[in-house]
């Protein structure tokens, strides 16, 4: 994958845990796979055109199956001296720079699946609603380390609004 434009010279990116692939695939399987199975029943009974729906759903699942590992591997973050860098996305890419001093608060969140896998998401909030600075799929130890590090760095470089 050529991603030179979204690379920053002299920055080594941290990757998130590969366990996130499993969690995301499971989510897709539940929310798309189960409806696919359910729509097979009327398709068997009525036949012909009704097969279209499960076929589309299965295709979507297959696409997501192929896409998710690429998406997860595309997520990267780097802690620079004054900023947090977050890189994301395969089709729609983004590279976000969040200064520590702009941090208003940090969220650590995890749903039931994420918690079972021992992962959490760290999200940095600034005074701007459009800042999207979330890092999903961090191992719990790394999540708490990052949270403490961000809190500390934010306090040290605190800026006004």
């Amino acid at each position, binding site marked *: 994958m050529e991603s030179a434009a979204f690379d920053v010279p002299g920055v080594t990116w941290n990757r998130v845990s590969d366990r996130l692939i499993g969690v995301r695939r499971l989510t897709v399987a539940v929310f798309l796979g189960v409806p696919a199975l359910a729509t097979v029943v009327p398709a068997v009974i009525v036949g012909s055109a009704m097969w279209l729906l499960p076929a589309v759903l299965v295709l979507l699942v297959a696409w997501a199956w192929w896409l998710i590992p690429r998406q997860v591997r595309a997520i990267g973050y780097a802690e620079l001296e004054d900023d947090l860098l977050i890189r994301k996305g395969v089709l729609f890419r983004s590279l976000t720079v969040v200064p520590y001093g702009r941090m208003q608060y940090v969220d650590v969140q995890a749903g039931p699946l994420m918690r079972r896998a021992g992962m*959490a998401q760290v999200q940095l909030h600034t005074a701007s609603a459009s800042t999207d600075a979330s890092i999903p799929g961090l191992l719990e130890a790394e999540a708490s380390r990052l949270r403490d590090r961000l809190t500390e760095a934010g306090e040290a470089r605190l800026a006004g609004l």
Partner: protein
Amino acid sequence: MSTPNPWAPPPSATAAEQPRPDAGDPPPDAPAAPGEPGADERIEWRRLHKVTPLLNAWKAAAVILGLAVWNYGEDLAQLDLAWAMKILLVVGAIVLGAIIGLVYGAIAWRRTRYGIGEESVFLHSGVLWRQQRHVRLDRLQAVDVTQPLLARLFGFSSLKIESAGGAGSNLTLSYLTDTEAQRVRNEILARAAGVRRTGQAPGAAPAPAQEAPERPLLELGAGRLVGSLVRSGFMIVTILLVAGLVLAIALTRTFQLAGALPGVLAAVGYAWSRFAGEFSFRLGLSADGIRLRHGLLEAKARTVPPGRVQALSFSQPPLWRRKGWWRVRMNVAGYGGEGEETTTVLYPVATTEEVALILPLVLPDLGTDRPLEVLQAALTGTGTDEGFIISPRRARVFDPLTWRRNGVRITDTAVLIRTGLWWRTLAVVPHERTQSLAMTQGPLERRRGLAGVDLHSTSGPVTATIVHLDVETARTLLLEQAERARRARRHAGPERWMSRRGGGEPDAAALRAGYAGVLPAVPAREEMP
């Protein structure tokens, strides 16, 4: 699972929970102790004006009357009673509502008290659900004095202190007498500015804070306001809709006004709210910041201290172009997310000359040697004149008309982003006010080697997005901008604006020598010093 638990509170949070002896604010769970909120700070607790329940009672009466008419209106019409009796019933409902409102208001008034400390403003209120709200003065974003019509007639005002916590993050004192509201505002602003009164014995009656002298700069005439509304984009849409409606009636020969009525009413309502809200708009400058006064029925006087404007935008609908008018809007952290359009307007209709006067109020130094020329290019220009970076030619697929107009210019102090050929817009974001930055690219953009850059500001009408730059240019811009913002933050003034060295009112002469002035129609090099 590993031992470090992310759900355990971080060490800093535990430290914060422990009582700090030096904290000036009373702990939130402590009972309200008027007169002695902290060991080292004495706050004089005050009440709102006695008339508050009366001014609020009519609201309760209106609600009860509305409910009664809504629920029992038809029953009342069918009741076999004389007209006099029916009118008496309605009057009774109003009186009952007023009495209930008055009694509740009186209790609420008794329970409400406010105080101004060295660090915070306090408001304790509530009848069933008690609330204690403390706003830190160094986090204050704006102070509004509002006079709703009824209160205005009797000489009362409501005072609102905005802080940066999104919608609803304000502290409202209503109602005070006009003079009291002004006195409280001046006191709050003086303390927020960091003006400390020295040589005053603690507990002594505080000397009234002097109002920072205000210099009026601009006043909007009613003629221009009406003209701007007639030529606004909203009016174009309305006229098109009405034309369509007339055409439909003419063609079908059926007259169905009922369907169009809500739309017409909404349009009239919007036009009226803009007219009444922006009527007699005045812009002034004082040491406490920019002061805006406006309103036909409900009068407002708003103060935005220095450094509180996060971003500015100048926009021009197509029909304003011949007049050279611009609508100036701002992002202020406290105003974000509040529905009213006028709240975020810095000046409703400014001529191009006035734009060059308003921008220096927010950005005293544009950070370039040729400020007027750069500003002119930013407002109306296209292409790479005056150092603008525009989309490369290959972006024509996405922006066939605007690719030369969409552009960005970075000066030493701010980012200027211009967009739109018909609906021109210029967004200005000072370097020290960007929250975070992002670079984005969709699949189609990638095929063309393009990318966009977003500067994230606090919520408000101004968005700072640069679209379809060359991808290498975009990345360089992103990284360099992060560095510039970092440097600018380091040198940014303190939150308490008078505590900086040489603080005070921006000198008018210095401003004019800077770049406030008449924009040259044609960039003229020899005019610059």
